C-alpha cells in the first residue's frame, strides 16, 4: 500500500511512526514541532492508539515511559526548551532500558532563542544532555522522505536495543514540504519478551539486550532508575553492581556499533576534498559538491554512537575537510578527533531562518 503524499517533515514523521507501530504519544505544544502533535492527535485514535496532551514536557516524557512498559511503542516530539526539560526522563529511560523515540525538531537557542528558526545546536545535548554515564542512539534525517523512512528505523533500534532513540530533525526539515512516499516498513522489530528465569536487566554478553517484560503479566518486574542488579533490585551502595550495570549499558550500544552506525557518501567517492555534515545542511553540501566536482560528501545518518574509526578511514588522505553547521560548531569536534584542525574549514551560521548556501560551502572548499 504505497501512497504518494505531499507532506512536511513533521507530518512525515507521524506517518513513519504509525507505520513503525507507534501506538502511544504524549506531548506538549512547542514550535516548531507542534504539527507532529496535531497530526498524532488526529491519526493515532484511528489506528487504535492513544494520544494525550501532557501538562508539560516532564509529564510527556514520563508518560511515554509508562506506556512503553505497559507494552506500547511510544513517542514524543519537542523542540529546544522542551528537549531540555525532558533530559532527566531520557536518562531514566536509558537506565531502565525503556524503548522510546524522542523527536527533537531543533530551533535556535539557547533558552527561548528563535522559536521558528532552524538550528543544529542540540547535537551535543542529544548525546550528552543527561547526568552520569549514559549512552543512547541519535539519528538525523535530511529530508521529509527520510523523516518517514528513518523514524521507522529509529523505532526498530529502540525496540532491538531497549534504548531511547533521539530523532534529531530541524525546523527546515520539519516545515519543509515535499512528495513523500509512504511505502510502509520493510521490517518491524519488536522487543524481546522474557522466558522463564531470564533476568530483565542483565545478560551474560553485554551486547545482547535483556528481554523486556510487559506490566500486568505476572513477571512482578521491579523497574527503578536507581542502580539495580539484573533482577531490578536496588543496590545503591555497591561498586560491583553499579560498574557492571553502566558498562553493560554502554557496551549494549557501542558493542553493536557496526549494526547501528550508518552514513552515506555522495558526490565523488574518491575525491580528496570532503564535506562532513548531518541533517538539513547536507542538501546544500551535496549541491555544492555537484556544482564544483571533485568533492565527496560524507553525510552522517547516525550521530551517536559515532564510529570514529570509520570517520578516520573516510577522511584519510583528505586534503581539505569542510564542516558546515547551523550552529557555532559541534560536529566539528568529532571531525577534529580524526583530522588535523589546520586543514579543516568550518561554515557556521545560525539564526534568522537563513540556511547555509551552497555558494558558502564552495567558498570554503576553495579557500
Amino acid at each position: 500500500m504505497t501512497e504518494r503524499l505531499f507532506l512536511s517533515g513533521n507530518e512525515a514523521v507521524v506517518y513513519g511512526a504509525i507505520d513503525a507501530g507507534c501506538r502511544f504519544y504524549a506531548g506538549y505544544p512547542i514550535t516548531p514541532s507542534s504539527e507532529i502533535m496535531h497530526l498524532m492527535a488526529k491519526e493515532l485514535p484511528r489506528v487504535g492508539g492513544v494520544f494525550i496532551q501532557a501538562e508539560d514536557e516532564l509529564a510527556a516524557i514520563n508518560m511515554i515511559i509508562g506506556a512503553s512498559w505497559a507494552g506500547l511503542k511510544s513517542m514524543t516530539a519537542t523542540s529546544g526548551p522542551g528537549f531540555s526539560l525532558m533530559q532527566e526522563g531520557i536518562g531514566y529511560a536509558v537506565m531502565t532500558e525503556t524503548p522510546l523515540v524522542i523527536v527533537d525538531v531543533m530551533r535556535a537557542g539557547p533558552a527561548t532563542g528563535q522559536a521558528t528558526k532552524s538550528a543544529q545546536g542540540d547535537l551535543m545535548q542529544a548525546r550528552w544532555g543527561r547526568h552520569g554515564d549514559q549512552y543512547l542512539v541519535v539519528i538525523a534525517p535530511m529530508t521529509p522522505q527520510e523523516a518517514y523512512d528513518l523514524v521507522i528505523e529509529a523505532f526498530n533500534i529502540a525496540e532491538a536495543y531497549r534504548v531511547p532513540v533521539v530523532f534529531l530533525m530541524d525546523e527546515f526539515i520539519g516545515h519543509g514540504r515535499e512528495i513523500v512516499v509512504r511505502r510502509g516498513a520493510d521490517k518491524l522489530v519488536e522487543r524481546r519478551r522474557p522466558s522463564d528465569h531470564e533476568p530483565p536487566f542483565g545478560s551474560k554478553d553485554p551486547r545482547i539486550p535483556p528481554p523486556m517484560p510487559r506490566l500486568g503479566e505476572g513477571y512482578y518486574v521491579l523497574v527503578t532508575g536507581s542502580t539495580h542488579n539484573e533482577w531490578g533490585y536496588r543496590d545503591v551502595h555497591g561498586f560491583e553492581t553499579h560498574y557492571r550495570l553502566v558498562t553493560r549499558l554502554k557496551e549494549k550500544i557501542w558493542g553493536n556499533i557496526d549494526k547501528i552506525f550508518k552514513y552515506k557518501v555522495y558526490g565523488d567517492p574518491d575525491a580528496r576534498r570532503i564535506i562532513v555534515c548531518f541533517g538539513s545542511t547536507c542538501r546544500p553540501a551535496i549541491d555544492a559538491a555537484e556544482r564544483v566536482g571533485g568533492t565527496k560528501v560524507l553525510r552522517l545518518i547516525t550521530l551517536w554512537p559515532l564510529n570514529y574509526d570509520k570517520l578516520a578511514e573516510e577522511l584519510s588522505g583528505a586534503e581539505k575537510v569542510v564542516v558546515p553547521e547551523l550552529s557555532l560548531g559541534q560536529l566539528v569536534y568529532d571531525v577534529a578527533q580524526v583530522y588535523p584542525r589546520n586543514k579543516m574549514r568550518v561554515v557556521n551560521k545560525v539564526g534568522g531562518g537563513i540556511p547555509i548556501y551552497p555558494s558558502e560551502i564552495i567558498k570554503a572548499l576553495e579557500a
Partner: protein
Amino acid sequence: MAEHFGLKYLRREVLPTAFCPGCYNGILMNALFQAFMELGIEDLKRFVFVSGIGCSSWIPSPFIRADSLHTLHGRAIPVATGVKLANPELNVIVIGGDGDLASIGGNHLLHAARRNMDLLVIMINNQVYGMTRGQAAPTTPHGMITPTTPYGNPERPMDVASIIAGTNANYVARWCISQYIPLKNSIKDALSRYSRGFRFIEVYAPCVTYVVRREGKTPGEKLKELMKKCVRIETWRRMSPEEREKHVATGVFKAEDKPGFIETYKKYIAQALGEK
C-alpha cells in the same frame, strides 16, 4: 501459627523493610494489605504500583510483590498515567510522599486530578523530606524548625486534600495514621465503590525520625497525640481559626463516581470515528 495476611503481598526476600524503627509506613502497609485481603484480592498480578523518590516511595519498590515502577522524583503520576492509558485493564496505584507528589510533582498531581485520570494516589504526608534528613516540605507546619528553616518555617503549609477536592477528582479523603480503620475502609472504597476516576487519599503521618524525635516524643506517644489532634472535617469546620491551626481535618472530602478519563476518552474517540 497462622501467617500474617500481609505476607502474601510482600517480597519476603527483601524483608525487613528499610524504614526507621517505629515508622508509620508500616501501619499504612498493613491497612493497604488488609484492604486487599478484605476485597478478596489474592495476588497483585493485575496491579501496577508507581512511586517516585522518598521514603514512602520505597513501600512498593521493592517491598510489594507486584509490578512496580520506581520513577524519578516527582514523576510517578505521569508514568502511572502512561501505564493506565496504554493498558486500562490494569489497576494503577501511586504511593508517594508530600515532597514527591505535592512539591516537585505538584503540577502532575493537579493535572491528573483535573483529568479525573483513573488512578489511586496515596500520599503519605510526613511533613518533611524524610529521606534527605528532614528539610522543610510544602506541608511543614508554620514555625517548625528543620535544617532548611533553622529559625522556624516562615512559610505556611499546603492543604493538599482540599486542593485536590477542588478539582474534578472523584474521591478525596484524608486520614491520620492513628485512624487505622477508617483509613483501611477508605482504601477499600477507593478500590471498590469508587473504582474509577482520580482517587486521592492523604495519610497524615509525621516522620518519626525528623518530626517526632525532634519533638522529643516516641512514635507511640505521637500516635496518642494524633488521636486528639485529628478530628472529623465537620468538627474542624465548627472550630475557631486558632483551634483549627492545632487540629487536622480528616474524613472524606469528596466521593463521586463520575466516569474517569479512560471512559471519557474512549467515548469521545468512538463518537468521532463512528461519525465518519
